[in-house]
């Protein structure tokens, strides 16, 4: 890669970094909106919000948030192997809320642990999680 290309990549990475800050700043509100839609049983909105959160979290380095959002999207799309208990949906939502509770200080270790605890039940509902 020549100098021009390196400069170009650096500029682009700076732009992504700015977008990541914006994403982080709105994370708590986004999960809260998702929670409201779940409680209102607004299926269409849940799918849309979960997909947006899933793809953005993937882009900005929140892998566990990505996977829980994916799980919620698939559950509300009816794309599951086994219908989940309401309690599991709530536990997933609570884990998601905890993961984004302090977005400035992402706690990878805690998030991984939370995900590991939920994984056996989540994977019974959707094997590809």
């Amino acid at each position, binding site marked *: 890669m020549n100098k021009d290309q390196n400069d170009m990549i650096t500029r*682009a990475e700076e732009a992504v970094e700015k977008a990541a800050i914006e994403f982080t700043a709105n994370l708590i509100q986004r999960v809260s909106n998702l929670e409201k839609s779940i409680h209102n049983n607004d299926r269409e909105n849940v799918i849309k919000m979960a997909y*947006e959160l899933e793809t953005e979290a993937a*882009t900005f*380095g929140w892998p566990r948030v990505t996977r829980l959002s994916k799980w919620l999207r698939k559950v509300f799309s009816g794309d599951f192997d086994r219908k989940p208990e309401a309690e599991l949906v709530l536990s997933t939502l609570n884990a998601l809320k905890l993961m984004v509770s302090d977005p400035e200080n992402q706690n990878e270790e805690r998030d991984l642990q939370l995900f590991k605890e939920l994984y056996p039940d989540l994977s019974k509902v959707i094997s590809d999680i």
Partner: protein
Amino acid sequence: MELTSTELTKLKVLIVDSNVFIAKTLFSILEAFEIGSIIVCDTLSSAEKHLGNTELDCIFVDFMMEDRAGLDFIKMVREGASPENEQTLPIILNTGVTDIDTIVMARDAGVTEIISKPFSPAQVLQKLSNAINNQREFIDVDEYIGPNRRRRKMSIMEWDGENDRRLQTDK
């Protein structure tokens, strides 16, 4: 081979994504590459309008938008619905959904490259360069229209008998 700065400045790219935030991020990356012209559409209907009246070099699309109607948009390009653009127009699928079914669906719809999120600027440059500079043979047969889905050369003899589907491409 990666596109040079000069080549990038001449490109006209369309981004089709209903997620405004992701579209904005991709726009910022392409802007940093000094791409000549970047059009952003958050609905398929506006994307179809641009496709019909703008000559493009590449499209970035997320087919999960509008209940997977993005897939029909890709097929529409491949079927040659746009007078301004060739069927061979490079299409890069920009997706957060990377399960095997999705990838197969996208491949069968005729996408040129797939960028799975998280995307990095280096990955975007590499896929864009690949889509434009290393175009694969274009197949146009009854069951499939799009770039050859085989990327690797197999170490087996090429079929040289009758009924070679590749020869039907020039119909």
